[in-house]
Every structure is written in C-alpha cells, then in structure tokens.
C-alpha cells in the first residue's frame, strides 16, 4: 500500500439510507474505497446503483430524506463525519470540489458566470473580487475558453453545453482542490465534446496532482481514464481493481456480463448477438441479504443466499463472490 499520507479520501463502511414512502431504501450499502493524490478512481455501475449517493455523501450534500453512516470518512486524514457544518463548508468548494452531471442546470441562471466563478474564491481565500476575476480568467483559458474575460459577463443560457461544462470544471478548480469528484460530467454531451472534455479533465488532474473520483456508467470512459475502477451493483462495490486488470480479467459475474454487453468493433460480430444480463435490478428497499446479483447470475448457487466473501489478488483486485473466477 502507498504511503498513507498520500491518501486524500478514505471511505470505510459508508452506507446511505433513504426514507421513502415504501420503506427505507438502502441506496449505498457498506462501501469502502480510498483515493490517493494524483489518482483517478472510477465508480461505475448501472443507473440507480448508488453512485451519486456515494458522491453526495462524501460532499455532505445528501438530500434531507437521506442519512449516511460510515465507519470512517476521512479527507486528508481529517474525519469528516465528526466535522461540524462550518468545517464542512470551509472544505467544500475549497479543498474538495465537485462537478455535476447536468451542465445545463448546474449553473444558476440568474447570475453571470463571472459572479458564480468568483463566489467561492472570495469566500474561501478571502480574496478581493479583482483577484478572483483574474484567477477565473486564467482558469477559463486553461479549460480552453477563448476570450475568457468577456465570458465572465455572460449568463449561463448564453453558453453551449460544452462551454458550460468547461465553466463548471473551472469553477471546481478555482480554489485549487485536492479532491475532485465528477459525477457523470459528460453524459449530457455529444461524443465529440465528451472526448474533448474528458481529455481536458484528465490533463488537468494529472497536471495539478488532484485526486479524482469520476462517476460514470460508461465502461468506455472508465477504460480510458481510470487508474482504478470500482464496479457498483445495487448499492455495493462488487469488484474493484486496477483498470487493466479489471477489464482484462474481470472476476465478478456482473462485471463480466457488463463487458460482454457492449459491442466492441472487431470483437463483436456485426449484427450478431450481444451478451446479456437477464432480469432486472433488485429493489433496494428493505434488507437485502446475500449476494444481490444472485437472481440475475447464471452461476448462482444456494451459497449465494449468504453474504459472499470478499476476495483479493495481490495487485489489489478485489471482488465479492463465492467464486474465485466466474469465467
């Protein structure tokens, strides 16, 4: 394991419960991971598996109906679950920041982007408006926005989606964060723009040595950008490991199924049948015992009714399954 001082974010035993009319929904169930300085961890999984809840729990932005519990939730060694509201506010937007999925709605339509960019900087760095604007112009340039100074006076609706997402990135970088959480930052964008934005993000992250948690459901993005990958299913991390290892030798039946679903030119035959994962995601309301994937798993056994063991290989590739290798 790397030097523990390199660990920016440490999540241990995080659970998020949401009160709903139908009962308690266990959106995130006892997940643990950590991210080091300069590392990109991708959380991947299908819609509703708890990715966003995880990120919001870290940022303490959960909706009112949701409660989180964690054995440990530490940022740069400081336990966030014990920090007060003021402390969290001091960290948020300052040393840990976040980029949201919808560039169209994540900016306040009533204020200029300049106003929204400098807000956090003035607050956290006690900087003057002028200094903040300078930094904003600098960062807008960095994310590839030409004539940045003029853009500061524009309103979000005057920018295209790609530009807005760049503004969001610049905004997240304003205070020079150590941790950047990006929740599906490109899902709403076109493929060509997506490639540009991801490239930009990856470059900046490397350049600034930020620890990044990138959330996505797109295995293509994961494969190209992540250092490590955590695959979530029904609120749990079912498999986690270095990117290459995970893609080249997936251990969990779910991960395997997922990879087989995607047509890959050259690998899948055009017009041929694609791999499938039968069935649907289980309900997360109420207690889920045993392996949550078992009723969609072709290799399910009686033993799956109990909680599956966590298995681990030497290179830090871990998975939750009764089988050593499902393939």
């Amino acid at each position, binding site marked *: 394991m790397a030097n523990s001082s390199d660990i920016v974010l440490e999540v241990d035993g995080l659970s998020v419960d949401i009160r709903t009319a139908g009962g308690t929904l266990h959106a995130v169930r006892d997940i643990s991971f950590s991210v080091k300085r300069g590392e990109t961890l991708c959380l991947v999984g299908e819609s509703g598996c708890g990715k966003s809840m995880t990120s919001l729990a870290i940022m303490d932005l959960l909706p009112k109906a949701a409660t989180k519990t964690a054995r440990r939730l530490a940022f740069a060694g400081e336990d966030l679950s014990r920090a007060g509201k003021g402390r969290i506010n001091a960290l948020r937007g300052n040393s840990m920041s976040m980029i949201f999925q919808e560039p169209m709605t994540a900016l306040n339509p009533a204020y200029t982007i300049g106003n929204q960019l400098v807000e956090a900087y003035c607050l956290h760095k006690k900087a003057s408006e002028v200094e903040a604007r300078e930094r904003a112009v600098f960062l807008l340039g960095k994310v590839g926005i030409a004539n940045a100074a003029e853009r500061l006076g524009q309103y979000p609706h005057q920018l295209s989606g790609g530009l807005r997402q760049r503004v969001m990135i610049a905004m997240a970088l304003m205070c020079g964060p150590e941790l950047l959480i990006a929740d599906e930052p490109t899902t709403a964008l076109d*493929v060509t723009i*997506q490639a540009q934005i991801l490239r930009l993000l990856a470059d900046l992250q490397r350049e600034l040595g930020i620890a990044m948690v990138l959330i996505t459901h797109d295995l293509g993005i994961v494969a190209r950008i992540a250092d490590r990958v955590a695959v979530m299913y029904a609120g749990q991390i079912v498999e986690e490991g270095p990117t290459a290892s995970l893609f080249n030798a997936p251990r969990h039946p779910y991960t395997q199924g997922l990879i087989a679903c995607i047509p890959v030119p050259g690998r899948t035959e055009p017009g041929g049948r694609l791999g499938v994962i039968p069935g649907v995601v289980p309900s997360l309301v109420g207690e889920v015992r045993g392996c949550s994937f078992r009723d969609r798993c072709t290799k399910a056994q009686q033993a799956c009714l109990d909680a599956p063991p966590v298995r681990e290989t030497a290179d830090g590739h871990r998975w939750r399954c009764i089988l050593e290798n499902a393939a």
Partner: protein
Amino acid sequence: MTALIEAHDLTRSFEVSRGMFKGKRTLHAVNGISLDIRQGEVLAIVGESGCGKSTLARMLLGLLPPSAGAITLEGQDIRSLGRKGMARRVQPVFQDPYSSLNPRRTIASIVALPLEVHGIGTAAERRKMTIEMLDKVGLPQRFADRYPRELSGGQRQRVAIARALVMKPEVVVCDEPTSALDVSVQSQILNLLMDLRRELNLTYVFISHNLAVVEHIATRVAVMYLGRVVELAETAALFKAPRHPYTKALLASVLTPEPGLGIPDTGLGIAFPDPLNPPSGCPFHPRCPERLPQCASVVPQILRDETGAVACHLHGQGPAPH
C-alpha cells in the same frame, strides 16, 4: 435492393422565439436531405444532438409535414396515404420509454391501440394478437394488465416495440431506442430488434449517436451535421474509410472499453454551432481540422458515388449528378 422510402430534398424549419423580447427566427432543423431507404436494410442515422435526426424521423413517419421536399413510399407520396395508410406500413419506436407509453393505459391496451384504430378483429381477437405480440418481444402474459409505471425501462421499451410491430409494418423508425437504457438492458433490446428483423423481414431506420451500436447493427450509415447529411455509406466502408472530416472526428471520439488507449484527441475546435446561426459555407468549417479556404463561403455539394455520398470540398467539386 429497391428503395422503399425516398426523401427528396427534405427541409423542415421551425419558427422559434428566443425569449420574450426578441423576434422569431427561423431554424432549419433539416436542410435539404435526400435519402433512400431500401427494402430490408438497417439505415443508421448518426449525428450530434440537435442536428435534426428526430425531425427527420418524424417526417419519415408522416408525423411532421416537411416545409419543402417530399417523401414517397414505393413511389407514392405519403401525404396521399393519409395517417392510417402510413400507420399500416411505417411505425416508430421512440427514445424515452417513459414518455412513449400512456401512463393511464394498461400494457395490453397500449399495444392494442393500433388494432383498435384500424378496427381489426373483435376485442377477443385483438387481445389474442396483443398477447402473442407481447410474447414475441419477451414479455410474459402477466404484464398485459399492468400499467407502464410498474415496468422497468427495458420492459417498457419492449412494449413500445410490440406496439410498433402489432400492425406488421414494413418499416420501423427507431429514434435512439436504447440511449435511455443501461448497457445491460441495451444489449437485450438490440438483440430483440435484430431477432425481430430477421423473423419479420423488417426495414429499420435506426437513429443513434452511439457509433459502436451503429457499427454493430446497421447496414448503411448516414452521418448528419446541422440539418444536412454530410456522408452516407455502407457501414463497413464508412468505419473503415471515413471520408468526411466530421465522420472521422466522430469515429475518433468513440471510447471503446479498451484500457490503456487513453482519450483520443479529435482535433476539433470547440466552437459549438448554433443552429439558429449556422456558419456560412460548409456548416462544419469552424471546427474542421482540414479546412480549405473555400469552406467558409461555399456550401459543398453532395457527391454521390458507388460507395455512397459525401458533402465535402475535400471530395470532388462541381454539382452532384442529378
């Protein structure tokens, strides 16, 4: 293969108001597209958001009258076919499985709607046909009397497909049928569509922005940019040798799950085009890495040849044949 549907110089514009104090502007969503859809093929239409794919699809379905140009179905203008006549031969599958099913109707009544409209069979016969159709798309009978909200996205999309196929149409226009679904469900639906095509001898117009899917499913691909078709070719040819710079960029942007390849550099400019203010000349020129001097002023004509068609100054000059 014979052309089943032909679109001649289709244009569709909308009057859009851009906020209260500004006047209306004309937006050319589809700008002079000529296409043929051949019996039994899967014609994919790809392009970025807002380039007019859905508008084109709605015109092909007869749901939206073109501002100019005409569509013929086996040589007959679709306007003369009427709503019912079109309905028997061309059917849609929409992108959003949530808004495409009436939440107040049961699954069976949704699927039976076209039969009812056309007055086919008795109620009992319709019920039987509906159940058969549901079975064909992989939905057990017990779903028949449920409501859409009780179904998952993939199941809903199956219902939509069942509704489209219950009248045994020849052409199915699928507007991004899987983009709202998770990958694990997407593959189920894609498999289903391919199976049904073989079984029922269907022709598909398949709209998507997912090039991996398109490559997997299509026989021919039309690439759209800002309301125009910029390139049209057989799938294999297009993916092997794209001719238009935009097609090239599009292909380069595809992120396949292959670790270690990193994020490609598409070389495109970031100036995202405003459809209300389309660039002069070739609409792609502000972003084009291979821009020529005349691109900014001259609209490239479409060049048709045996491999397909392309509209780019890099490929042939002069007016296209016909």
